[in-house]
């Protein structure tokens, strides 16, 4: 039985006339998880927005449950049981989780006021019904990202949505949260709902979906049962011509002199008496990529803050090239960042990476103000030509005078990358989740750029919550667990996914086998809780 059938959907965006969807067809089985894959700009989001009533197609027909329908706006879509969870959450931070879920359908008491008690009871019941463990009474802004996403999903389920669309649901989640989400999606499917997932991560498709539709350049290339296709085949279909560069086949120069070495780095945790970073020591050399990963809350965030110049550590010695200083003279470290010796790409580009209401051009020149402002005045023509150059080179779909907030997540990430890689080469690059939100092709291009920077003599620290990325790029790997290095590989040592996974969960891993023991008694609890995140 088909839940959704979209035939010959065409959608042109005016005034450019770009065909976002060009004769796209989609058939979705009821009660299945159906993935839609493709690169940024392949038209997957547009197709789903048409289904959710956020856009209207220029031509084509839509059938829901076998009936021919017109979907002109989101409320008509909701009548048909279609709901969409967006990539950037639409949540009122100040309202409680329950209020967010039942927004617009709050229970009203006899006095005409919102009945808070029964509101929270209803919300909790709903969450329980679908197996979410969620505190519905707290303000939504205080929830973790994964929990906020659950609020979004529950909001749709509360409206009796039977066809749930998720736009890039995993892009903001950590590894553990992704696994938890997938378990929940399987449960929701059990209850007879149909789930559509937009993604560009093939491995997630293989893991969760029943069916997959590949889109390229606005067209649907084909629909396959996941069991009958391989990941390689899917990526080939999504990318078109198979110009797949495998970055790891390149020759690499041997590491050179140390660039940055940190020893005994300590950072106090903001919440409890625990240390966010506890006597952490490492060094990174020229022509070397040091990949550092961890599960959420184990010190990766604090390390990013310290390396990015946002959080003065409480203790530690820092040696940069040959000059050595105590890290608590944090201004010396910040000066390295602001003089261009260290370049830093933040993981949270929405908060830290852009000024949303300024133009793309202004965002682009913000890091290299010295070269665009001569004697304090802007050289507008130079700034514009350089921005256009970057837009072409990094394939950003944007206009220099467009506001940055209008860009999609992937394009904002491209803008942040363009900004970093348009600067003169630095001694050290600190890159945090550099390929977040990017499609496969751009991810590959970014990998090549990072490797080129390494080969040109930069030292690179790669902080990532994505183990695959760490494995694809790193010359050496370090895993943080509770603020300490639980695994530090040496140069040339082969590190497996399993070893990294175990080290992230707190098991001390001996050098060559996966035999492990628990470091302390209470880690078993952690192990249990995070079992879903264990990739092995």
């Amino acid at each position: 039985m088909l839940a959704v059938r979209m035939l010959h959907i065409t959608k042109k965006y005016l005034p450019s006339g770009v065909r976002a969807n060009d004769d796209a067809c989609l058939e979705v089985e009821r009660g299945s998880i159906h993935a839609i894959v493709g690169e940024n700009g392949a038209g997957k989001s547009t197709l789903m927005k048409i289904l959710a009533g956020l856009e209207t197609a220029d031509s084509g027909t839509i059938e829901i449950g076998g009936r021919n329908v017109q979907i002109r706006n989101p409320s008509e879509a909701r009548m048909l049981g279609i709901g969409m969870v967006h990539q950037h959450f639409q949540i009122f931070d100040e309202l409680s989780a329950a209020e967010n879920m039942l927004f617009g359908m709050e229970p009203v008491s006899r006095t005409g006021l919102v009945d808070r008690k029964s509101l929270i009871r209803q919300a909790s019941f709903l969450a329980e019904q679908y197996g979410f463990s969620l505190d519905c009474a707290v303000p939504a802004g205080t929830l973790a990202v994964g929990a906020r996403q659950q609020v979004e999903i529950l909001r749709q389920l509360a409206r009796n949505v039977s066809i749930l669309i998720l736009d890039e649901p995993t892009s903001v989640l950590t590894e553990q949260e992704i696994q938890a989400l997938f378990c929940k999606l399987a449960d929701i499917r059990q209850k007879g709902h149909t789930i559509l997932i937009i993604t560009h991560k093939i491995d997630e498709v293989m893991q969760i979906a029943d069916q997959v539709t590949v889109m390229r350049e606005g067209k649907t290339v084909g629909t396959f049962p996941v069991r009958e296709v391989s990941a390689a085949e899917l990526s080939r279909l999504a990318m078109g011509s198979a110009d797949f560069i495998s970055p790891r086949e390149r020759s690499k120069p041997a590491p050179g002199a140390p660039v940055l070495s940190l020893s005994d780095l300590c950072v106090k945790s903001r919440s409890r008496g625990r240390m966010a970073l506890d006597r952490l020591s490492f060094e990174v050399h020229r022509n070397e990529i040091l990949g550092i990963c961890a599960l959420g809350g184990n010190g990766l965030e604090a390390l990013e803050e310290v390396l990015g110049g946002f959080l003065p550590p409480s203790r530690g010695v820092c040696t940069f090239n040959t000059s050595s200083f105590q890290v608590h003279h944090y201004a010396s470290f910040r000066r390295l960042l602001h003089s261009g010796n260290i370049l830093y790409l933040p993981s949270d580009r929405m908060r830290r990476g852009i000024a949303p209401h300024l133009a793309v051009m202004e965002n682009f020149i913000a890091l290299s103000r010295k070269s665009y402002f001569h004697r304090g005045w802007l050289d507008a023509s130079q700034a514009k030509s350089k921005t256009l150059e970057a837009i072409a080179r990094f394939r950003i779909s944007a206009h220099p005078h467009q506001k940055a907030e209008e860009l999609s997540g992937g394009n904002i990430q491209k803008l942040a990358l363009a900004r970093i890689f348009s600067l003169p080469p630095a001694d050290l690059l600190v890159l945090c989740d550099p390929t977040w939100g990017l499609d496969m092709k751009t991810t590959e291009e970014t990998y090549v750029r990072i490797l080129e920077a390494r080969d040109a003599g930069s030292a690179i620290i790669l902080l990532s919550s994505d183990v695959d990325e760490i494995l694809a790029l790193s010359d050496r790997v370090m895993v943080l667990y509770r603020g300490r290095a639980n695994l530090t590989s040496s140069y040339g040592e082969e590190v497996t996914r399993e070893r990294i996974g175990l080290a992230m969960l707190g098991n001390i891993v001996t050098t060559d086998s996966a035999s492990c023991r628990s470091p302390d008694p209470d880690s078993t609890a952690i192990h249990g809780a995070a079992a879903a995140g264990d990739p092995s």
Partner: protein
Amino acid sequence: MTGAKPLSSLSRTLFALLAAVLLALIILALSAISAPSGRQAGFFEMASHFFITPFSNPYFFGNLLADSVPLMIAGLGILIAFNSRNFNLGGEGQIYSGALAAVVVVLAIQEHASPVAVWILGACAGLATGAVLGGLAGILKAVWRISEMISSFLLSAIAIAVTDFLVAGPLQDPNSNFQTTREIAPRLLLPGILQPSKLDVSLFAAILLIAAAGFAGKRSRIGFELRICGENEEFARYCGIRVPAYQAGAMAVSGAMHGLAGALLVIGLQGRLIRGFSGGLGWSAITVALLAQNSEAGIIPAALFIAFLKSGSDQIMIGSGLPSEIAALLQAAIMLVITMQTIPLVRRMKNKPAGAVQKRGSP
């Protein structure tokens, strides 16, 4: 998004202005109906006093322009603070004490100084005083994170009290029955335009200042960095911009503009400082900046509109015998309508950028 699009900010402003005018007419009509006959003019006469008289002859029009000059300069000051996401609520005291500083300086040197020197030194005195008051609030914010709204307001309250004391005490003109300082020699005052109205050349200074600020905001490095600070503080820190310096600096410049507005008033045709002369100017300047919607060019029409409101309600009071309470009500109601439409703007400026996406939790 399909469906109704939100109105653009310009059409929203025009809509609000229209609503304000309608509201004014309703209040006038109500007052005309309820007043005992004979004591007050009719509705049409009142409406004509309100809308037409301010423009009916050079004298009234000159006064309207003169009223708009301090609003323009002080409004620019508020706008500069807005652009860096700072709220200067101390405008009242900054104008008042800036004016006092200008009077004190000019009175001290007036025996042997040329008019130009008097204008420059008087203006500088106002600028400096305002800058100190505003900058102090800015420094308190930059160093100890004390809300600049509260500190600038309280500092301004202190400045008003001190100025009142000086005007009524040590600086009181012994030959006057009013609480006022001595008069500056008429030859040293700014040359007037549209005599005998109170307009003077400071109008051109205000327009030049606004043009310069608009250009600097768009094209200069300082203006660019200031806008980044106002847009997203975390991004500004990422770019290596010294955010505290800009917080203090923007507040100082904002204060300086207010001080200048006060100084130009006293070295203009007023020629002396009368106790409490600035009544409400600082607050009206905030309305001007809100109405201008973050654009320097918008300040000029906004200031003219606010000045027109004042002038219109004055005319109606004088010409039609409307009780001053009704005139004040009229002004307040219009002010309310036009500021209401800027609420989304204020909320946007005061809130942190909507950081709906955070990749990882905080450490």
